[in-house]
Every structure is written in C-alpha cells, then in structure tokens.
C-alpha cells in the first residue's frame, strides 16, 4: 500500500482571508454582466428606455461600486497603508495599489465618460439606432475593465499565497474569467447567441476566437484542477440564471410596432454548452503540459475546442430551434416584440457559404480551428504572464 505523503506541515501557510475589496469588485463585475443581459432583454421586451431603467442602474452600480471600492483601496494603501501593503501595489502617478484596482478604476472612469458621450450621441444621431456605437464601445471597455480588474486582483492574491491558495480565491479568479467569457458572448450576441446560427460557420469562428482567449489563459493561470471547465461552467450558470430569472418577470412592449404581444421579459437564448469543449481543453492541457511547447498546445486546444463545440452545438441546434424546446428550461417568449412572426424562428440562418450551404464544411471548420489556435496562443501567453503577477 502506498502512502501519499502529506505536505510538510512546516511549509503550510494558512491562507489569508480574502479581503473585502475583492468581494466588492466581483459583485461590481457581476452587476455589470447582469445589467447588460438585463438591458438587452429590456430592449427586446419593453423597447423604450431611459437612463434610469433598472438594467442601466445595475450596469452603473457596477461602475460606482468598483470605482469607490478600488478608489478607497488605493487611497488607503497610499496614505494609510502599511509598508507591506504599499510594497504589494504598483505605482500610478505617485499612488500605490494593486494592478487590478487600477484597471477597475480605469474601467469605472471609462463608464463615467461614456454616460455624457452616449447622451450626446442619442441626441445627435437618435436613440440607440445601433447597439454598436462609439459611446457604447467605451461603456463596454469600461465594464470589461472592471471584470478584468477583478480577475487581476484575485490573481495577484492567489499568486502571492505560499502553498495552495484558498479554494475561495481560486474560484474567484475563475469566476472573473467566466464573467469575461459571458461578456464576450454578449458582445457576440448577433453571432453566437441564437441556435439558428449554429449551422453557420461564423458561429464556430467567433466562438473560437472570443472564448478560447480566456479559456486558454485560465488553464495557464488558474490553480484549479479543471479551470477551463470551471470557467465555462460560470458562463453557463450566469446565462442560465438570467434566462430562468428574466422569464419570470412580466413585461409589456411599449413601442410601436408590436408584432408579438409580450407578456414576460424576453430572456437571453439558451447558452452554448461550453463545458463540453472546455472539458476537452482541460484534458488536452493536462496531457500536454510540460510535454509540448505553447504553439503545439494552442494548436491542440484550438482543434479540440472547435471539434467538440461543433459536435455538440451542431447536434443540439435542430432541437433548440424546434418548437419542442419552447419551454421554461430552454426559454419561451424568445423573440423581440418588434420582430414579425415568421418561418425564420425555426430555420437556420445565413447558411449560404457557411457549413450547411457551402461545399467545403471541413474548410470552414479548419478556419475556425486556425482562428481558435491563434486566440489560444495569445491566451496562453497572457496566462503565462498572469502566473507571474504578484501585485
């Protein structure tokens, strides 16, 4: 019988308690993600909005909370911190604070800047004519900064802990990574949200580029055993949570023309089953770690991810676009009030030139795998840097 030696107790360090500001920034990052998903639902269900909608408040609450918490943290560290606390920060115009706090503060300022800019934009060019506009991109950069700041703050604490960091800290890092993945799927709403796009090459290409950056980085920098799977699980839990919660709330469309009488908030589409390709990424990473260079690892990650994502989503897509999936679990009431009912609801979209209509499905998947490999390679490099972040 082989005894597994316990680590020498002399090297064991009790993990330091997780500081309050990390909780605050993670709550802020969550608030931004929840707010954005809520806001999209608001526009699809109610249509009419003002600055003061609850969804906007959730987004800006995230900015205010992160800004205040990190602002307080850097002021306290600079003017009232111990030598140890100051030494654990980076310098910024004479101030001291964790790198993640500065990124979150930057994000909060970007969000603040976007508000008057967006207001002017609405007055000049019309109310939300397009989702993608310069002030909205600035806002998105802002809340992404807060999510990134949360990730970096959890990371520095995790990396500074001697021995094994607390499970809370490890999960906090992965949670922040999961929020960033959710963020990517929100930004790629038109490409990777609807099941009707799942027989379209672009779906796999956008998913590979957008998601693998974070999954690959997480596999490198997280101390969890199955970091990509855990990150993907966070994305799925957040999206499913919003799906199931939003459809509980009554709503009425308030802008003409109304082509569908809305009774409940239109929830986000059912999430991609990301845990399965992410599990593949974890398996590959565990197998190749220390045996292959980063290029080879990135290639394997890209190929496995695209193959598994394709296998899963291609297979479930016909069910997801069929009336059989119109239930609470998969989401009912899933179309905007302003969209005319039509056959498109149960059809695959834009398949011409893509996988379904094209003659070269393998080529399109190959393109997705190549793009995914490039994204994974950047993610691994970023992850390698993150393993060294201490402040």
């Amino acid at each position: 019988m082989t005894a597994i030696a316990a680590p020498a107790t002399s090297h064991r360090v009790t993990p330091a308690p997780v500081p309050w500001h990390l909780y605050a920034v993670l709550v802020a990052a969550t608030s931004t993600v929840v707010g954005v998903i809520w806001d999209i639902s608001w526009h699809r269900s109610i249509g009419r909005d003002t600055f003061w909608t609850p969804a906007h408040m959730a987004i800006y609450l995230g900015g205010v909370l992160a800004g205040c918490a990190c602002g307080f943290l850097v002021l306290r560290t600079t003017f009232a911190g111990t030598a140890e606390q100051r030494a654990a920060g980076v310098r910024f115009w004479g101030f001291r604070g964790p790198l993640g706090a500065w990124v979150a503060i930057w994000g909060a300022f970007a969000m603040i800047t976007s508000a008057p800019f967006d207001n002017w934009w609405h007055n000049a060019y019309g109310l939300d004519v397009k989702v993608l506009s310069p002030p909205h991109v600035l806002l998105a950069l802002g809340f992404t900064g807060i999510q990134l700041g949360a990730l970096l703050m959890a990371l520095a604490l995790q990396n500074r802990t001697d021995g094994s960091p607390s499970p809370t800290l490890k999960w906090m890092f992965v949670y922040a990574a999961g929020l960033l993945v959710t963020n990517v799927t929100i930004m790629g709403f038109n490409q990777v949200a609807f099941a009707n796009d799942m027989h379209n090459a672009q779906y796999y290409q956008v998913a590979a580029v957008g998601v693998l950056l974070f999954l690959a980085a997480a596999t490198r920098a997280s101390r969890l055993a199955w970091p990509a799977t855990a990150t993907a699980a966070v994305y799925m839990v957040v999206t499913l949570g919003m799906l199931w919660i939003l459809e509980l709330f009554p709503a009425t469309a308030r802008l003409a023309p109304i082509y569908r009488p809305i009774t409940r908030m239109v929830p986000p589409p059912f999430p991609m089953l990301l845990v399965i390709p992410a599990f593949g990424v974890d398996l590959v990473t565990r197998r190749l770690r220390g045996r292959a260079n980063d290029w080879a690892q990135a290639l394997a990650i890209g190929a496995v991810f695209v193959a598994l994502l394709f296998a899963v989503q291609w297979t479930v897509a016909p069910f997801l676009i069929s009336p059989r999936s119109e239930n609470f679990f998969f989401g009912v009431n899933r179309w905007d009030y302003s969209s005319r009912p039509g056959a498109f609801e149960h059809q695959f979209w834009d398949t011409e030139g893509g996988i379904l209509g094209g003659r070269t499905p393998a080529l399109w998947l190959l393109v997705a795998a190549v793009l995914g490999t490039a994204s994974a390679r950047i993610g691994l490099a970023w992850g390698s840097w993150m393993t060294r972040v201490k402040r």
Partner: protein
Amino acid sequence: MRRLGRVVLLAAVVAVASAHVGSPDTVFEGTAGPYPVRVVIRTPGVVPGLADIAVRVTGGPAVKTITVLPLRGGRETAALPPADTARLVAGTRDLYAAQLWLMQFGAYSVQLTVDGAAGRGTAIVPVMAVATRRLPFDVPLRVMLVALGLFLTVGALTIVGAAARDSVLEPGVEPDAARRRRARVVMAGGAAVLALALWGGRAWWNSEDASYSRNMFQPLHAATRIVPAGVARAIRFTIDDSTWLDRRWTPLIPDHGKLMHLFLIRDDATAFAHLHPVARDSNTFVAALPPLAPGRYRVYADIVHESGFAQTLIDTVTIAGPATAWRASDPDDAWWEESRQPSAVSGQQDTLADGAVMTWQPQPLVARQDVELRFTVTGAGGRAVALEPYMGMAAHAVIAAPDGAVFIHLHPLGTISMASQLVYQLRQAGDTARGALGRRITAFEDTAPRAWMTGMTPALSFPYSFPRPGHYRMWVQVRRGGRILTGAFDLQVN
C-alpha cells in the same frame, strides 16, 4: 478623443429644414370629441427621438385625463403599445404635456384621447418624423470629454507600464534598469495600439456621422421654369428627384382638393402667389403665370403622399420681362403685389382689394411659444363682413421669413395637412395597392361635405409657434364675393 471632438465641431452646423421649411413644430387646433384643444408637437429633429407634445384645453367640458399614442404606418400589428398619459403642467389648469417616442422615419399619426365630463373624445394629429438637425458638440461637453479622454488614454498607458514594470515583481522588489526599459518599450507599443484605436474610432465616428447626414430629410428635388403658353406664360414645376422617378415614394393625394399648392414669394416679399398647378403627368405640374413683377422668386410646393407624409419642395425661379395676360388655370389661384395694394403693409391693418379691411389683433409674439394669430375682416363702417369658404377653409395663410429659411402654409386648424389627417381616418387594412387610398381620399373630398370647415365667421385665427425670433411677413387669404383677397402683415417675433 480630441481629434474626434475637432471633427465633430467642424461638422456641427445646425441646419434647420423640415417638411415645413424651417418650421419643425406641428400645431393643431381642433376638437377631440366635445373638447376643444390646441396641440403643439415639438419634434426632436432626430429619429429615433422623443418629441414633446403639449395639449392645451381651450374650453369645453371638464377634462379628467388626456392620453397620447403615436402610431406609424397602417400595417396590422399584434398589439398597440399602451398610450401615455399626459400630465398637467405644474402651475397651469389647462396645459397637459407628454413625450412621444418617434422611432422610425416617416409620417406618424398621434392619437389623442381626452376623457372628461362629456365622455371620451379623440383626435388625430399627423406628425412627420424626420431627421432635420445637426447637433453641435458644444464647448463645455467637448472640454469635459477631451479631458476625460486624455485621462483615460494616459491612465491606460500608465497601467500598461505598471503591468510591465512592477506587477510581476515580488512585493517590495524595485524594478531594475532593464525592466524599466522594457516597460517603456511596452508603453510605446501600447501608445501605438491606442493611437490606432483612436484613429479607428475617429474613422468610425466620421462614417456614422456621414451616414446620419445622408439620412437627414431633404425634400424631393424639383425644377421650375417659366414657359410660353400661347400668348401668355405658364409656370412649369417638375419633380425630377430620382427617388420620385424610381417610384420609391407613394403617390400624391389631394390636400384641400389640390394635388399641389405652389407658392411664389419674391425675394423682397413684395409679390406673392398661391397657385394650384394642374398635373400633366406624375412629375410635371403646370399653372398659368400671374402677372407678377419681374424678379427672383422663391418657390415652395406643398404636397402630401398617400403614406400621409407631407413635404414642401423648394426651388427658385426668375421671372423676367413684362407681365402677360393671365387667365387662372385653377379658380382658386390668387396673387398679390404690394405696389398694387390700396395701403402699405403694416403690422396691424391691410385694406383688401375690394375695400374691406383685414385687421390683426396684436399680441406679443415670442419664438417657440404657441400663439393664436387673430384677424377680423370688416367692411364699411367697421361692420364685420361675410366670408366664403376658400378651398374648404375659412382662410389660408402663409408665413415666411425674409431669408426664405422659414415658410409655413397655415390654416385655422394649424400647420397640419388635412390630407395627412384623412389618410389616418380613411386608411383600411386592405390598402396595400398604391393609389387605392388616394382614390378614396379624392372621392371623399369630392363628395363628402366639407366637414372640417370651420364656422364661416369674419373672425379668423391661426395657431402657430414661430421657430425663431425675427421679422416675418404673413399673407392671409380669404374669399369674399367670389374673389380671393389677400392681406399682408409684418410681424416681429421676439
């Protein structure tokens, strides 16, 4: 950000143009069932946008609630959005206000519902939702955004430098020279990326701005020519806009029985004509030219489309040579010349061609405030005279600014087009073929009693909201003894 600010500043020219030239507000005076109301709708000049609607109850039974609902198009939808309740403006007892969400370009009908002591009454007010405005990027906002943009740019570079220099060092360890150098290189790279992003942002903004400018409302292009017509002359007005020739607009429908109301205003406002050209084909409209004094004239042509969209086409024409004999091509055509009038134009009174006197009841005029311009027509001894309907209305009026940038064709019902209102009253779900609704409106105008005609009293009133301060000339046209009589007034708006 600074570059962006400069670009927008250069582009920030406030140009005011509208379906009614330079007069973007819609004013309606009428009734919602038993309730007399005056409605002023101030459009935002941008689409989608929020218009302000003010409903003034001008008498009648007590009002409990007023709701407003803007509707676009006539297609069947699954449901109507809930109407908005207009709130009583603080400090007033008869003024209600709300906002209208105008989300698409084109003609809207605002359904006004009044509930009160005499039950429920409704009215339809047509509104044109068009982008007419370039919003300036004003200095305080620009300064603030440039400052924040600079802060964000420099802040981002500082963070990038800190990430490269300090973040991977054990706490307390100072970066060595090599690391500092590397951080500077990384920052330089970051600066290049940021510069590229800002440059891309500028290009994006410019392209959005250009796209907005392309979608700003421009009336259909038209050309005006004076052409010989036997021994006389005619004015030929041709809509030559490619979007019209390509039939991308719905056909025209008659407004007050005429497909087109064409106005000629001499540059110095000393001559004026209100004509109703006859359609030769769907593009060409011809009217006999009155013996107007030579000179350059501004041409305004009011037309209404079957969609309910009303617009004023603009052009100029030079009338040269001696006047020729005139035989009106439409019995409702009329012209006026200051030099031939019995009295000079003043702000108060004008003697009409038949000797009757038209008098304006003066009141202070303030820009962007709704007013009722009241006139009376009296005969010998100051006694009120009987007027006859002129194209179904008690009177027609035109208000123009000396520079031509403001022009409005007014009725006692306000600025709205009667034909647009009819579109919403007579439209049926089955009206999918071009021209079907137009034919019904024509038949209605030909046969139905002039239900909209206001009582033929010698007291006239025109509700209006002047768009800007300055000097205006107003022509008021009435019919008496079979003649169309024109009075002119000079108004000063503060």
